[in-house]
């Protein structure tokens, strides 16, 4: 009878779970981890380049989130907030650890599907995109990931990166143009 409401907790909105977690309900926080953990792991792996490092970062991120949850002003916006914490920890872990490892190819096996040609084209496309992403300068890549995965507003990214909003917009535009140019063969 430890978490009698785990199933029911899965039905309610983030804001309700955040409210409970702020009050000390670890079961509600556990539900938030299950709900947002996968995207955070994938996102962090894109930044740090290894699943093992990503798993460490995301653990830290949830631990930090638990402690700082009372500071979250808009409980409904917990996902971008979690992404922001994960992003910050991921980039600082990159800096602690000088580039000793090359970024591995994260796309491993082809997913099972019935149309191998389409899948092959699509996978090649995604690989090209993945490679293009890796060539971006760190600040552009960070802006891009915060925007496209974290779904942060330009203003929030600006605040997060301590840059003027116009600079963030410029970096995002350059990131997009650069990815687009590199994907030329796949359009």
């Amino acid at each position: 009878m430890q978490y009698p409401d785990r199933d029911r907790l899965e039905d309610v909105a983030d804001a309700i779970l955040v409210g409970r977690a702020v009050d000390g309900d670890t079961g509600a926080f556990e539900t938030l981890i299950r709900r947002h953990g996968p995207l955070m792991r994938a996102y962090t792996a894109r930044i740090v380049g290894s699943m093992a490092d990503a798993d460490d970062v995301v653990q830290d991120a949830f631990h930090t989130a638990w402690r700082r949850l009372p500071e979250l002003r808009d409980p409904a916006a917990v996902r971008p907030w979690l992404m922001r914490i994960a992003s910050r920890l991921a980039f600082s872990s990159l800096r602690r650890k000088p580039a000793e490892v090359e970024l591995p190819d994260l796309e491993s096996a082809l997913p099972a599907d019935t149309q191998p040609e389409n899948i092959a084209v699509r996978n090649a496309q995604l690989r090209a995109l993945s490679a293009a992403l890796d060539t971006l300068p760190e600040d552009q890549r960070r802006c891009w990931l915060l925007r496209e995965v974290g779904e942060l507003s330009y203003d929030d990214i600006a605040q997060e990166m301590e840059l003027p909003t116009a600079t963030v917009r410029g970096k995002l535009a350059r990131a997009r143009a650069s990815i687009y140019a590199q994907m030329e063969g796949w359009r």
Partner: protein
Amino acid sequence: MNDNEPRTLDCGKTVEELSAYLAAGRTPSDPRIETCPECLNALQGLARVSQLFQDLITQDVADLPAPPANWFQDIMTNIHREVRAGRSLPLPHPDTRVDLSVTEGAVLALIRTVGDTVPGLLIGTSHLEGNVEEPGAPVDVSVTASVLWNHPIPDAAHTLRALISDALATHTALNITAINITIEDLHRETTDSDKET
């Protein structure tokens, strides 16, 4: 094919310019761009980068290996160590030498526990407003809750208020002057109802 020079379209616009235009939400509208087939084509391609990127992350998530065995438990263990006790609420005891109290965190947990027994209702956040550390001081209770779609809200709120009132009278010495309930959200059952019963 992959130089770092800004790529210039035949119409004279650069991909960078178009990307900046897209980032600005295509406002103010630039008729030279909006009527140029080449620019429109590039804008479409630039916008598609986002979609493709979403596909990439979706695939990442789908291909995600399970986390290491203790990954989840480690997080939970760390969290359990940092209990949110809150304030200390005095409880009367016949022996004046005995200092008895209950933590605010425990009272909030009590509110959640009794609140969650109301059919179709799940407690969100709970607050004790007032000087709870002072015996007899007036205290307002405020709770938010989410109610299951199609459940009558007044009934649920009525039951909730009675349950909280009883539980606090039984387990605390608080002088409750009001119980404010805000139904903050409605939710649906997402679990497969076939499996339920």
